[in-house]
C-alpha cells in the first residue's frame, strides 16, 4: 500500500505528497524522487525512478511515482503503462486507478474514466479528489443525477471542502434545480470563508476518527464548538464527521447548535432531522425535516427522509406529498416507490397505488415486496382475480419465498377455491415451517373439506401465534362442534373470550355451542351481546 502523508489545505487538489527540503539527496531512489517531485523537477525524478526500476523491478513504490512524474509531464502513454503495471502487480491500487481515470479524462474518454474512478470513489480510501473527478466524468456523459449523487456521497467524508459544494451547485444548476444549486453555492461560500483554524480542526477530527482516536477527535471538535461565536457551517461539518463515525449523540448536538445559531441554515435542519431519524426520534425528525423542507422544498433527500419518518410514524396521509416529490425527482428509486405505495394503501387510496406498483413490479427486484404490495392494492380494489394472477407471478419469480405462496393461497381462498388453496398452503408451510398464518390457512381448508381431526391439529399450532390465535380458536371450536365434542368447544371459546371479549365471531360461536349444550339462557345472552356489538359497529 502506498503511504500518503497529507498536510495540505482544503483547496489543495493533489494532497498526497510530503514536502521535504533537504541539504542533499538521500541514497534511497524513492526518497530521492520524492524530493525532486516536491521541487517539481519531474524529468530528473523520472530518471532516478527509471534507474530504480531497472535495479528493483518489483519496487511498486518506485513504479507508482514513475507513473506520477510521467503524468505530470503529460507523457500519458508511458504513465498509463506504469500505473497499469502497479494495478496488475498490487491490486486494487486505488491511487493508480485514480490517475488512470485522470488520464482518460484528459483523453476525453469519460466512459473509461468512469470505469477507473468508480471503484476508487466507492472505496473507503481518501484518494485525492476522486469524487470530483468521477462526478466530472458523469457530467461529461450527461449522467447528471449520478454526477450529483457522487459529490453528495463525498461530502460527508470531507465536509469542510467547499469545492465539493461548488461542483455540486454547478451540476444542480444544469439539472434545473435552482433552489438546490443556490444552497450548494451558499455552502461553498461559507466554507471558503470558514475560519482556517476550524478547517484544520475539522481535518484533525477526520484523521483522528479514521484512526479510532475518539478522545483526540473530541478534543479537536471541542475547539470548533467552543469558538465564540461558533460557525454554524463548521458545526454542521463537525456533525457530519461525528455522524459518519457513528457518534450520533455528538452529531446531533452539533446540528442542533448550528440550527440554533442559524435557523435558516438548511443543512443544519436536514442533518438534525436525519440524525433524529437514525435514532428513532420520529417526532423530532419530522419537525426538523419539515423545517428543512420549507427552506428548500426541492430537496430530494429532505422529501425522502421526511416521507420515511412520516410513514414510520404511521402518518400515511402526510407522507404522500413529500414522497411524491421525491419520487418525481428520482423515479427509479424502488424503495421510495414502495413507501409511497404503502402510504396510499394505508389511506384507502388503492387506485393511486395501483399504477405506481405496476410500474415498480415491471422492474426486476431482489425481493417480492413490490409484488406483495401490488397484491394488497388489487385486493383492496376487489380485483381478486388480478391479485391471484400477481400472486402466481410472484411465486414464479420467487419460488423459494414463502410469502408469495401464502399470498396465492389467500387469493384462492378469497375466490372460494379452498381445494386449490390447500396444496399452496402446504407448500408455504414447507418453505416456512413456523408460519402460523400458513397453519391457519391450511386448517381452514381442511375444515372446509370436512377433515376436522386434521384441521384441529393445525388449528392447535396456529393458536400459538399472536396474530392467528383468534382465528385458530374459532376454527377449533367449529371443528369440535362438527365432531360433537361440545364441552371442549365451549372450553376453547370461553378461554379465548378472556382476551378477546370484543370479538363478535367468538360470541357467535359461543352462542351456538351453548344452545347445543342446552344452555339456551347463555346462548340468548351471547346472541344479545352480538346484536349489541353489531349495532355499535364492532368488528
Amino acid at each position, binding site marked *: 500500500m502506498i503511504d500518503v502523508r497529507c498536510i495540505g489545505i482544503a483547496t489543495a487538489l493533489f494532497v498526497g505528497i510530503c514536502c521535504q527540503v533537504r541539504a542533499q539527496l538521500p541514497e534511497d531512489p524513492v526518497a530521492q524522487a520524492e524530493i525532486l517531485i516536491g521541487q517539481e523537477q519531474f524529468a530528473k525524478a523520472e530518471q532516478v525512478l527509471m534507474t530504480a526500476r531497472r535495479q528493483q523491478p518489483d519496487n511498486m513504490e518506485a513504479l507508482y511515482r514513475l507513473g506520477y512524474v510521467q503524468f505530470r509531464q503529460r507523457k500519458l502513454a508511458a504513465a498509463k503503462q506504469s500505473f497499469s503495471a502497479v494495478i496488475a502487480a498490487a491490486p486494487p491500487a486505488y491511487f493508480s486507478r485514480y490517475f488512470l481515470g485522470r488520464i482518460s479524462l484528459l483523453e476525453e474518454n469519460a466512459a473509461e474514466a468512469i470505469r477507473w474512478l468508480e471503484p476508487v470513489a466507492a472505496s473507503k480510501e481518501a484518494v485525492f479528489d476522486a469524487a470530483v473527478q468521477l462526478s466530472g466524468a458523469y457530467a461529461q456523459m450527461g449522467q447528471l443525477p449520478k454526477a450529483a449523487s457522487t459529490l453528495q456521497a463525498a461530502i460527508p467524508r470531507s465536509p469542510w471542502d467547499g469545492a465539493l459544494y461548488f461542483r455540486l451547485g454547478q451540476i444542480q444548476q444544469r439539472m434545473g434545480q435552482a433552489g438546490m444549486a443556490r444552497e450548494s453555492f451558499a455552502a461553498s461560500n461559507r466554507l471558503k470563508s470558514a475560519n482556517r483554524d476550524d478547517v484544520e480542526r475539522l481535518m484533525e477530527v477526520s484523521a483522528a476518527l479514521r484512526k479510532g482516536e475518539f478522545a483526540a477527535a473530541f478534543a479537536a471538535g471541542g475547539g470548533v464548538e467552543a469558538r465564540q461565536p461558533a460557525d454554524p457551517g463548521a458545526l454542521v461539518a463537525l456533525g457530519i464527521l461525528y455522524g459518519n463515525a457513528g457518534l450520533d449523540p455528538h452529531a446531533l448536538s452539533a446540528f442542533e447548535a448550528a440550527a440554533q445559531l442559524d435557523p435558516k441554515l438548511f443543512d443544519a435542519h436536514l442533518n438534525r432531522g436525519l440524525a433524529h431519524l437514525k435514532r428513532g426520534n420520529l417526532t423530532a425528525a419530522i419537525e426538523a425535516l419539515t423545517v428543512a423542507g420549507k427552506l428548500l422544498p426541492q430537496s430530494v433527500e429532505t422529501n425522502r427522509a421526511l416521507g420515511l419518518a412520516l410513514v414510520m410514524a404511521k402518518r400515511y396521509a402526510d407522507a404522500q406529498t413529500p414522497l411524491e416529490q421525491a419520487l418525481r425527482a428520482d423515479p427509479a428509486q424502488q424503495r421510495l416507490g414502495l413507501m409511497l405505495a404503502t402510504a396510499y394503501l394505508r389511506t384507502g387510496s388503492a387506485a393511486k397505488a395501483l399504477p405506481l406498483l405496476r410500474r415498480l413490479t415491471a422492474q426486476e427486484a431482489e425481493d417480492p415486496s413490490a409484488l406483495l404490495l401490488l397484491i394488497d392494492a388489487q385486493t383492496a380494489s376487489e380485483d381478486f382475480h388480478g391479485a391471484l394472477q400477481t400472486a402466481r407471478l410472484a411465486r414464479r419469480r420467487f419460488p423459494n419465498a414463502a410469502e408469495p405462496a401464502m399470498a396465492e393461497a389467500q387469493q384462492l381462498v378469497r375466490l*372460494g*377455491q379452498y381445494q386449490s388453496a390447500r396444496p399452496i398452503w402446504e407448500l408455504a408451510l414447507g418453505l416456512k415451517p413456523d408460519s402460523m398464518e400458513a397453519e391457519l390457512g391450511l386448517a381452514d381448508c381442511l375444515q372446509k373439506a370436512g377433515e376436522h381431526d386434521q384441521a384441529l391439529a393445525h388449528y392447535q399450532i396456529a393458536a400459538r401465534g399472536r396474530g392467528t390465535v383468534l382465528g385458530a380458536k*374459532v376454527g377449533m371450536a367449529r371443528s369440535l362442534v362438527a365432531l360433537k365434542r361440545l364441552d371442549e368447544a365451549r372450553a376453547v371459546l370461553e378461554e379465548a373470550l378472556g382476551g378477546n371479549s370484543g370479538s363478535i365471531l367468538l360470541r357467535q360461536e359461543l352462542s351456538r355451542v351453548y344452545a347445543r349444550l342446552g344452555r339456551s339462557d347463555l346462548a340468548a345472552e*351471547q346472541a344479545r351481546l352480538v346484536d349489541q356489538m353489531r349495532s355499535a359497529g364492532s368488528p
Partner: protein
Amino acid sequence: MTRVICFLAWQAAVVAPVQPRFADIASKAGLNDVIVSGGMPKRYVLEVNGSGACWLDFDRDGYQDLYLVNGATLAQLQGKAVRNTTNHLYRNNGKGGFIDVTAKAGMPGTGWGFGCIAADYDNDGNTDLLITQFGPNVLYRNIGNGTFADVTGKANVGGGAVWHAGAAFSDYDLDGDLDLFVPGYLDFDSKNPILKNCEYRGVKVQACGPLGYRGAPDSLYRNNGDGTFTDVTRQSGVLDAKLYFGFQAVFEDFDNDGWPDLFVGNDSNPNYLYRNNRDGTFTENGIASGVALSGDGKELSSMGIAVADYDHDGWMDLFVTTFAGDNYVLFHNDGDGFFSDVSYPSGIGEPTVPYLGWAAMFLDFDNDGHPDLFCANGHVFPEVDGKLTETFRQPQQLFRNLGAGKFRDVSAATGIAKLPAQSARGGSVADFDNDGDMDIIVSVMDGKPMLLENRGGHASGNWLRIVLQGTRANRMGIGARVKVKTGGLTQTAGLRAGESYLSSNDPRLHFGLGTAVEADVEVVWPGGGIQRVRSVAANREIVVRQPEK
C-alpha cells in the same frame, strides 16, 4: 320362464339409469310474455330484484297451472306512463302447453308485482293466490268458476305502502287455517328516488342497495277463519325491530316438535330463525341455531331459500342462495334445529362462488330418492359486463345429490349449462306435464321465462306423487310432514306454501323411488294425527285425505 325374463328385461329397461336432460320449451308451451323489471339501464335497486312464479291447479283439472308475476317501470309507478304489462295466469291445457287466461280470471295484479304464493287460505277447496307488491299486496280468492276476486281489503292483508317480498303461508297456531307472513324489503321512495352512484369491485354502478336504505317491516297475519286476517306481528314476537331487509320467508318445523318455525332470509343482514313457542309467539334464535350467518360468521345476502331433508336423517335442512363472490350456503340440520354450514364439504360451496343466486329448489330430478338442487342465477349490475369476470347474464346450475351428504354439479350433463345465460330471478318446480318427473319454471328479468322440461327423469327411476287433503288441518295440508319408506331408505318431506324466491312449488309432493316398486307412506298432519298408507305402488299419484276425526 320366457315371460319372467321378458318382464325382468322390461322392468330393467323401465328403470335402467337414464340421464335426464332439461330443455327450455317455454316458447313452444306458449309462455311468451316478457317479465318486466324496470327495464334497462338499471338505475335503482327497485329494478333489479325480478319477480316470482307459482304453480297452482286453479281449475282443479289435475294439471298445475302457472302464475307469473310481472313488475313495471318507475315511470308507470309514478303515473307518468300507462302500465301495459300485467301478471299472467296461464292455464295448463294438459297437452304440454299453456293458455293465458289472466283477463278472464280477473287477476292481473295492481302494481309492481314481486312474489306470489298459492294456498287455499279459506279452506274452500280452491287454491287462492297472494301477490306481494311494491306497495299493497293483493289477495285473489279463487271463486271456483275460473275467476278470482280481489279480497285484499276484506282480508286486511294489503300491508300498506311497503315493499313486500317473498311471503309464506302456514298454520303457525295449528288452528286449522293458513296464516300469512310477509317480509318487508326496504324503504324505497318511488316518487323521489335518489340516484345513487356506487362502486362494485371498482365498477361504477347505480342500482346499489340494500345497504344505504332503511329496511321495511315484516308482518305476520293470523287467519281469523272467516276470510279475514289480523296483524299479530308485534304480539307474536316477529316484529323485525331492526328492520332487516327481508327477502324470502319459509315456514318449516325445523326442530321436529310438530309446530312450524319460521326462517326469514334477510339480504345483507343476519337471517332470522323464529322458533315457534307453541303459544302463538315465536322466539328469534338465528345466531344460536347457526343460520343467521355463514359458517365463517359473515352476513349473507340471502335471496332464495330451499328446504329439504337432503340427507335423510329426518331433519329438514336449509339452502340459501347469495351474492356473487360468496358461496351459496347449505345449512345441515344437526338435530333439534341446530345447523352447521356444510357448503364446502357437500361440494356446493366452490362452484357457486362466481354466481349470484336467486330461486332455489330441491327436486329429485332423476327419481333416485335423493333431493337434488337447482339454482337460478343472474347478476344485479349490468355494468359488470366486460369489466369483471362476473357477467350480468349467468348460467343456471343443477347439483345432483350423490347421497352421503355430497353433491356434484351436473349442469353440463343435464343440458342446464347449455341454456342461454340469463339474469334469472324467481322459480319453482312442478310436474307440469304429469309424466312423473319434476320440471322447472324460471322467471327471467327483462326476458321471457324458461320452462325447463325434464326429459327422462321419469324413465330414470320410479316415483310417487302425494296429494294431501286436510279436513281438521288446513285443506291443502300445508305444514304436514310426509315420510316415504322404500327398502332401507326413508325420505322425509314437508309441504310448504312459499319458498324458493318469491315463488311457490307444486303442492303435490313428489318422491323419486329409484328401483323400488312400492312404498309405505306416513303423513303427520299439522295439529296432530298420523296416517299411514302401506305398500303404495310406484308411478302414480295418490290422494291422502285426513280422517274427519
